[in-house]
C-alpha cells in the first residue's frame, strides 16, 4: 500500500458488496416474487433491477428487495417503489427492459413513467 488513492480504489471496488448490509437506501424497490410473480417472469426483472442500479451507481441510494404476493396477480410482475415523503409507485407487467428504463428515468431522473404504472391500467 503506497497511497491513500490506492486504498480508496479498493474501497470503491468493494463498496457495492457491503452496501446491501446497510439497508438504509432512501429508495426501496420491491419486486413481488410469489409464485404468480415468478411464473410471470419476476426473476429476470429483479435481476435487471439489481444490475442496473449498480451500473447506474445508485447502490447506496437504492435498495432492491423482494416481497411475496402483492395481491394483483393479473398484473404480475409487479414492482413497487417506495421513497420517503413520496407516494408509493406501483409498476405492473414489468420486463427486464422496462426495469432498465425505470432505473434510468425514475430512480436516476426522478420522473415516474406513467404508462407502466397501475393507475394507467385501472383508469
Amino acid at each position, binding site marked *: *500500500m*503506497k*497511497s*491513500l488513492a490506492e*486504498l480508496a480504489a*479498493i*474501497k470503491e*471496488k*468493494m*463498496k457495492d*458488496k*457491503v452496501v*446491501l*448490509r446497510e*439497508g438504509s*437506501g432512501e429508495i426501496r424497490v420491491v*419486486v*413481488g*416474487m*410469489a*409464485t404468480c*410473480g*415468478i411464473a410471470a417472469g419476476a426473476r429476470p426483472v*429483479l*435481476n435487471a433491477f*439489481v*444490475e442496473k442500479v*449498480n451500473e447506474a451507481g445508485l447502490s447506496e441510494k437504492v*435498495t*432492491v*428487495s*423482494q*416481497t*411475496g404476493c402483492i395481491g394483483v396477480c393479473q398484473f404480475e410482475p409487479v414492482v413497487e417503489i417506495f421513497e420517503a415523503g413520496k407516494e408509493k409507485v406501483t409498476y405492473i407487467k414489468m420486463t427486464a427492459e422496462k426495469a432498465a428504463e425505470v432505473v434510468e428515468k425514475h430512480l436516476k431522473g426522478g420522473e415516474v413513467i406513467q404508462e407502466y404504472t397501475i393507475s394507467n391500467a385501472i383508469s
Partner: protein
Amino acid sequence: MIRSQVLVCGGTGCTSSGSKTLISTFEEELVKYGLQDEVKIVPTGCFGLCEKGPVVIVYPEGTFYSHVKKDDVSKIVEEHLLKGRIVNDLVYADVSEEVKEEASKAVSLNETNFYKTQRRVALRNCGVINPESIEEYIAMDGYAALGKVLTEMTPQDVIKIVTDSGLRGRGGGGFPTGRKWSFTAANSADQKYVVCNADEGDPGAFMDRSVLEGDPHCIVEAMTICGYATGATEGYIYVRAEYPIAVKRLEIAIEQAKEYGLLGENIFDSGFNFNLHVRLGAGAFVCGEETALMTSIEGNRGEPRPRPPYPAVKGLFGKPTTENNVETFANIPQIILRGAEWFASMGTERSKGTKVFALGGKIKNTGLVEIPMGTTLREIIEDIGGGIPNGKKFKAAQTGGPSGGCIPASLMDTEIDYDNLTAIGCMMGSGGLIVMDEDNCMVDIAKFFLDFTVDESCGKCSPCRIGTKRMREILDKITDGKATLEDLDKLEELANYIKQNSLCGLGQTAPNPVLATLRFFRDEYVAHIVDKKCPAGVCKALLNYSIDVDKCRGCTACARKCPVGAISGTVKKPHVIDSDKCIKCGACMDTCKFGAVVKG
C-alpha cells in the same frame, strides 16, 4: 450480480451451536434452487445475541432469524430467497408495542429492544463484515485511519487526538490511553514495542474474543497506529490459546495486511515500518496482568514483577512498551476518523465513549452489548437484557469478574462509568456482567470467585498465595455453618491486608468479591453464622428439606424419586424425610406436584 446476502454468525457461540453446518447447507440449497449467482453467503463475527444462536441475517431486508436449525435452511432459501416471503416463525422480534403496530411486516434488527439502545463503536463491524476478508474491512473505511495518520499526522497529533477523546483503558484499569501512549513516546530507545492484551481471563467476559473473531483487522490497524504514535516498530498480540477461531482469524488478517503492504516496510510510502506477531497464552489468569504478560511473551514463566519501572520505561525485553487491551484498540481507528469531539460526545464527564458488556447469568438475552458510558444498570438488565427469566427478582450484578464487586438491586439506577463503580466499591473490570437473582447465595458467589483466584494465584507473593487460601477456608466454615462472628472480622481484616500488600493486580483485587458482598449483603453472612441458615437455599450444609403434612397427599412420588431412600410413609398418608439420610439433592422438591416439600 448479487442481490441478496445471507450473513451467518461464525463467532464461537454460534459455531458451537452449529453455524458451520448451516453455511454448507445454505450453499447446497442455493445451488438446488439455482440462486448461487444471486445470493451470497457471508460468514461473519458475533452479532452479540448469542442466546438466540445460531443467528442468520438476510440483507437487504435485514431480517434477523434466530435459533436456525439445519432443517430450517431449505425453508429460508425457498420462501425468503426464492419467493420473497419472510419466514415469520423464525424471525426474532422482541420489540416494543409501538414498533409492532407500525411495522406491517417483519421488523429489522435495529428496532429490536436488544439492539435499539446500543451504540456500536468497538463492535461496529462485528456481524457486518466477513472477518477473513481485508477487502470488506477496507470497504467499511478500514485502514483509512492508518492512511490518514501516516500521510497527514505527526505522532504528537495522534497522541493529542487520543488524549482529547478521553478514551480510557477498557481492560479494567481505566487509565487514560493517550497519556499511556505519551509516556512511551517520551522515552527514547533503539527499540520500542506495542503489546495487545488479548488474554481475556475473567469468567463470563468474551468481548475481546468477539472483536478478534469479528473484526481482527481493526486491531492490526490500531496497533500500527499506536506504533507510529509511540515510535515502536514491533508489536505483539498475546491471545489465549483457548480462542482458536480468534487466533486463526488474526493470523489470516496479519497475512492479508502484509500482502497489501499495510504491515511491513514503508507503509503508505511514509518510511514507517511495523511488524506484528501473535503469541499464545497457556491460560493462566495472571498473564492478563501487564507485567506477567510481558514476562510470558519473553518466554519465561508468567509471573508479575514490581512496578515501577512501568512498561513505558522498561517493558517487553526491557524496552519501552505500550500495552492496551483489545477493546481499547478497537476504538482507535474510529477516533482518528471521526475525531476526538465525536468520541467525547458519548458517555459521562470522566468516562467517554462506549463500553461493551458481556451479559451472563440469570438474564434472558445472554450476549454482548455495547452501550454509551453512563447507561444505568436498570436499562442494561431490563431493557436490553430482557429482564430476569421465570419471573424471579433481581438481586445483584457482578461486574469485573473475580477482581470486581457486585451492584445490589438498590443501586440499579447507578449510571455505569469508571468513577461511579469505584465509588460504590465495585469496578468496571473488562465488562463481564453476571446477573444474579433471588436464588443466588451471595456468600456462595464470593466463594466461587475466591476459589478462582486461589487456583489462579501465581504463588510469587505470599499475601496472595497464602492469604486467599486462608480466606477461602473461612468462607468454607461460614457456608458449613461452623463459623463465628469473630471469623467474619478476621475475614475482613485479612481481605484488607491482601489488598494492600499483594504484588500485582490479581492479589490486590482478589478480596473484592468478598468485600463487596460483605458491604451490601452482610445480613446473609450473619444468617449463615448466627442462624445457621442460607437464605437463598444454596449452601447444602445449611439446608433442610421437610414435608408439610397439611399439603402432602401421600402420592409417594417423592419417595420413589429419592435416590437415597430417605423418604418414608404409607400411601395417602403424609410422608417424612429422614434428614440424616438426606443428601439435599432437591429431587423430591422438583417431583412434588402439591408444593409440600419445603426447603429451609
